[in-house]
């Protein structure tokens, strides 16, 4: 199996950049996008195994992005990540085929575990 490649999507740059750096330090290739449109463009351009998507983003929100990824890039596992969790959003996300629904703050190890599982499952 090729090395897993992860796309991080979050409008909070102060979350995005440190997380990318820490993931890369663990030897996993990682790209970032700060909104849904950029994320879809990145997915069209390169191969990714897993997208970690923040639920609350201005413009296209994480749920809509999840819907599009499942439709247009079905081989990409989507992990939803949110700091403003609600049962409703969680159920919606899982219904739409998210691989996992995680709550912020999250330990890097736990996130990486989930990413590895997502990749393993897609393989």
């Amino acid at each position, binding site marked *: 199996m090729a090395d897993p490649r992860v796309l991080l999507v979050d409008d909070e740059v102060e979350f995005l950049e440190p997380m990318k750096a820490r993931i890369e330090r663990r030897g996993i290739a990682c790209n970032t996008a700060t909104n849904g449109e950029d994320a879809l463009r990145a997915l069209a351009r390169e191969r990714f195994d897993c997208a970690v998507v923040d639920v609350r983003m201005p413009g296209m929100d994480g749920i809509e992005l999840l819907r599009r990824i499942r439709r247009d890039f079905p081989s990409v596992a989507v992990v939803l990540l949110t700091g403003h969790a609600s049962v409703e959003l969680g159920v919606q996300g899982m219904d739409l085929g998210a691989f996992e629904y995680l709550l912020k703050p999250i330990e890097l190890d736990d996130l990486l575990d989930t990413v590895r599982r997502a990749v*393993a499952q897609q393989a």
Partner: protein
Amino acid sequence: MGWSFRRGVDGLLARAARRRPPAAPGVRDAAFRLTYERFREILSYNDVVLGLIADLEDALAGRRPFSLDVVRERVRSVALDAFVMVKNLDQLAGGAESRLYDALERIDGEINALWAATTERLNGPLLVPLAALRAGDAQWAGTKMANLGEVANRCGLATPVGFVITTVATSRFLSENGLWERCDRLEAVLEEGGPSALGQACEEVGGAIERAVIPAEVVESIAAGIEMTFGSRRVRLAVRSSAVGEDSAESSHAGLYATLLDIAPEGLPAAWRSVVASAFSPVAVTYRYERGLSPREAQMAVGCVEMVQARCAGVAYSRPPDDPASDVVVIGATSGAGAALAAGETSAETLFVVPGREARAGGALLGDADLRWLVSAARGLEGHFGSAQDIEWAVDVSGNRFVLQSRPVVAFAPPPVPCPVTDRSPLLAGGNCACPGVGSGPVFVVRGANDLPSLPQGGVLVAHHSSPTFVSVMRRCAAIVTDVGSPTGHMASLAREFGVPALVGLEGATGKLRPGQVVTVDASGRRVYEGDLPLEGAARPIGPSDSPALEKLRALASFVTPLGLTDPSVPGFAPEECRSLHDLTRYVHERAYETVFHFGDLAREDRHHSFKLDARLPIVVRVFDVGGGVTLARSGGGRVRVEEISSVPFRALLDGMLEPRIRWDLPRPVSVRGFLSVLGESMAGPPAETLQIGRLSYAIVSDCYLNFSTKAGYHFQTVDAYCGESQNKNYVHFRFKGGAADEMRRQRRIRFVSAVLEALDFRVDSRSDLVHARLDKYPGGLIAERLVDLGHLTMCARQLDMLMDADESADHFAAAFLAGLWERF
């Protein structure tokens, strides 16, 4: 037994350390581990949910105070935990449990709908003239002003002119300045930091409110209201709180919020802001906390009415509060304005007037015509509102009579305890009964609000004058006695609300009653006796019997605590039948075990199967290995011997359970009474737990992990433990839930289990019929020793409640257990 425990554990620990999982586990192993982790997550969230359920039950039973906002936050987070449980189960089951999402959404929706009714109102009028108000406008105008509007517009009684600045204005003000969150937090501060922390926090919040900018639209509305109501007249205003729910029959809030008098119109915006701030004073926050009212629910409107230049003012009760059936109107009067009277700071003239015989009532302040008007107003308002009324009134210097407010009389909740007949002569006699009843305890003299926190549980509060600040101790004091004060004052209303026997206006009380002296206060008989006279009947229940918040809590709890899904073997054990978060987690918990069970069946390799434990035990144990918990000497399976268990924690627990000196197989000295009590309770209604888990016990094990659940005797217990090299990961988590036996025996059993666990260094939290004990971050050897102890406990506690004949037996058995005297069990 050939296995030396200590050496055995060390050996296993060392082996476990050598046999670390490979660095890059294959997909199958990853999936297998994932199952185990999801399963473990379900179990841990299950405990969190059960903790909330126990807390809600305690709050409902009045065993602990609660704040609706804190409950709301916890329910929200527990609903999310339930979501994670559902998600994990559905993932474990490969999508076969997705119907649970619908059940969760349904329950979550019902809970949210319940809250939606109480969320802040941001739309609506900012100011409403009194002339336009009716009783039904309480949501905007607050209860006090809505009722006053009813008095003015529907009852034909004169009131001062004025208007109300609505709850909408308060909401916008607090929202625009971002103050809600800070206000909301005060109850949590009280809960966590106690009264001393609250004072500081309230000062900060109050200061922030006083400094906050009043929205321009509110300032403009106030100016327009003044212009419209008073024209160019130079008036002085009385500015008073009118919170939603304030002055209702269930919760008076009597005297807790600020009233500002003699305010010039140009000073009104600032005065309004001060009254709003008074909703967050320590005494107001404490009161709401004690009554379980949320700040957002007790929303503040502010009434502004023209000051009456009073010659004489006071209160009137359409019926005596301590004798609602009698045909008497109670009138309290004082010369000048009435505020000092209501605050309890001065004695007043109290008249008991029989309608039709006003002339006989006497009194120096009021003429017959005034009395007749008061009696007719009081009874008229009682008729209009349909319950006995507590009225504030004033007669101005020109003789015009006004009703200033009318609210239901706060009736005392518990029936008064009759005072024992005694030959003893009282220490003191006289005064007025503010709340009937009898209470005894040591005297505690309160000279100022700062003394209140030191008042001991069950103390008799003695003070010079009565004060609404006493509300903070009304739950824990046995009685209240004051030198000065009126039975028609605010404190009296609060005392009746909380059911605290109170005797006010008892001259010389602070002089005569010595601190620490034990006295019995017979408030109904207006006497104080030396010593603790034996009381007939039960002690008064702690806290108010009912409140709007309790009703809300009950409604909320109906979606959280009831357990309807008890028997997994019937068709009704299905997601569609889940009515509460308890049902839901119960379902997930049960299915999670089943799923793990089936996962074992599906797996190809032997080690993925479950085994029946071959051991001399009175229970059947099925063992699931999730990684290195079993070392099979032979292939195939079905059964596993104790020696083949390589799970360190399970081996330790079994070592305790198999202690040969615990003779569970011999008939024990069963007390007949105990046995009958167990039978009786079972027949009255089988406790849910006895039906919940089948006869089987389950052990889910890995090399370092154990989750063992069993129904031993009449209780259900879970041991969850991790015992490895890394001290920080190690823990033992023990949960014990009783069943059968009567309440008394259950409590003794809980006491026994708690006493033993505390002696073994566990952090113990016992609530209702549930004991939670934790031991975290201990070295592996010590964790294993404690698991041996829990093994002993599992066997010894099996049917212990049958032996628990007396209160001391709990301590007696705990001591015997700790001394290793197994033959006693």
